[in-house]
């Protein structure tokens, strides 16, 4: 389906938030112009479309920018509402639960694992890994409740909360490669482990997940810049 002619996405290949939006667009079968931005050397278009945060992703639809990945995903779901599948759950209570956990992922899980990537000392890294594991333990419980025995958080098909968490998975593999740490494992979080497998194989999301090598490269660059 065409993106109604005028749809651009400013992004960074390895940003989980960008990947999240790309997964949503892919699910809807929407075409768009993808513009890779150098976040270490911010371009004019980025500064103009997201002057508040100067961050990606930014979706530009008919010249109007939309920022914040979760807000973008909801926007995409609303604008291309006719295109199956629906991303947000239909039931208001399930939507509230999905939004709660999506906020939890961004507020608690993300700072923990990115903190591990950026950690200056072994102690700090261990602390951040431990926080990541604690958050994932919560999400394991959430999965049990939300999925109701089905394949995904969203039920039979990938939904909002699947995207919210799933976009982080390639970074968990990156952390495994860089630090030899297993964040989602069959022993501690069996439900998430089998969900991650299924999510990784889902057609709509597969193509937008970057190679772990690229993420490792980016992580090393970040560490060079920010870790002293």
């Amino acid at each position, binding site marked *: 389906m065409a993106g109604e002619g005028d749809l651009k996405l400013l992004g960074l290949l390895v940003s989980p938030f960008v990947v999240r939006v790309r997964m949503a667009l892919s699910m809807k079968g929407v075409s768009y112009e993808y513009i890779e931005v150098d976040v270490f050397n911010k371009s004019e278009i980025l500064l103009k479309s997201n002057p*508040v*945060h100067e961050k990606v992703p930014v979706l530009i*639809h008919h010249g*109007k920018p*939309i*920022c*914040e990945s*979760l*807000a*973008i995903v*909801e*926007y995409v779901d*609303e*604008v291309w509402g006719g295109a199956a599948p629906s991303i947000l759950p239909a039931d*208001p*209570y399930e*939507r*509230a*639960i999905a*939004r*709660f956990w999506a*906020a*939890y992922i961004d*507020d608690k899980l993300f700072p923990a694992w990115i903190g591990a990537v950026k950690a200056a000392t072994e102690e700090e890294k261990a602390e951040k890994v431990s926080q990541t594991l604690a958050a994932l333990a*919560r999400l394991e419980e959430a999965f049990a409740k939300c999925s109701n025995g089905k394949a995904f958080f969203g039920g039979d098909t990938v939904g909002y909360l699947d995207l919210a968490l799933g976009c982080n998975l390639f970074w968990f593999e990156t952390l495994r490669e860089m630090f030899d740490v297993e964040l989602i494992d069959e022993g501690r979080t069996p439900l998430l482990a089998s969900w991650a497998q299924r999510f990784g194989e889902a057609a709509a999301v597969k193509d937008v997940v970057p190679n772990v090598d690229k993420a490792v490269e980016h992580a090393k660059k970040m560490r060079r810049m920010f870790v002293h």
Partner: protein
Amino acid sequence: MAEEGVKVVGMWASPFVARVEMALRLKGVTYEYLREDLANKSEMLLRYNPVTKKVPVLVHGGKPMAESAVIVEYIDEVWKDGYPIMPADPYERAQARFWARYADEKCNPAIYVVYTSAIGEGQAKLVHEAQECLKTLQKALEGKKFFGGDAVGYLDIVVGWYARWVPIIEELSATSIVTLGGFSTSVTDQELPMIKAWFDRILAIDVVRETLPPRDKLLPLCKPDSDWVNLGGFWSLVAVGWIVSVMACVGSSNAVWVTAMMTWAGVHGVVLDGGWGGRSRVSSLSLTTGEGGTPLDVRAATLVVGAVAHRRRPRLECCPVVAVARAA
């Protein structure tokens, strides 16, 4: 109407609880209000919200949910024929969600930090930063009566509490963030007339006024009361069997620093979550008097407290303050 069993678990001084009540009242939904003592959280709250253990919690037909901004959207969706809270247009909705997140992530902490600041050069910088945040937020207001347009909408509900809290913070910290006033000499003379005008308009809305805690109740709560003592005259009160609490911003250099001092002084400490709920960063540090209430090394405790005092140059009626209470 789907009104069976609507309950709000809340605390009167929480701005996040106020958001939920505002939304319900705009929709004309009747609800049961269950008061929570945040210093002594009920089993009910922990059952309804085991993840963050915070208020507000909305329970509808027995089903609990948390996170005030999420709850407001839920209310708008369930009672969709009532007062419209979210904008109708998807682009406007995306903007509203973006700004709500901006307010909670950036404006809230910037404003809070002014509240806990001490007079001095450092404070003027904090005031300026809070103003910059509000100026940015103001972009969503330009040319309109409310963030929602002609009437109160989602973003007004999300940040409406600023209209009550910011003037109180200005008074207690002797600063002018939004309102130009004669509170102190060491502030910038910038003001935010658009925001101030919005404060006046929003407080004129009945539902908003009914749900925000009244100023005369809120002001004394934010001020230290008789149990709270200025650090300056404090350390003589530290004695065996007393519990010392220090209000600090979690993650702030002060909190990290106090913890380090405690470890060095060999004082037992426990960090407790407290405060306003939502994405609050308020926490309290409790220095216990040793296991089973055994005598604390008074010198150690006063060293910690004295060091904190030195670091923060406290003044009367301003955080960080130290509360002293007898151990239970």
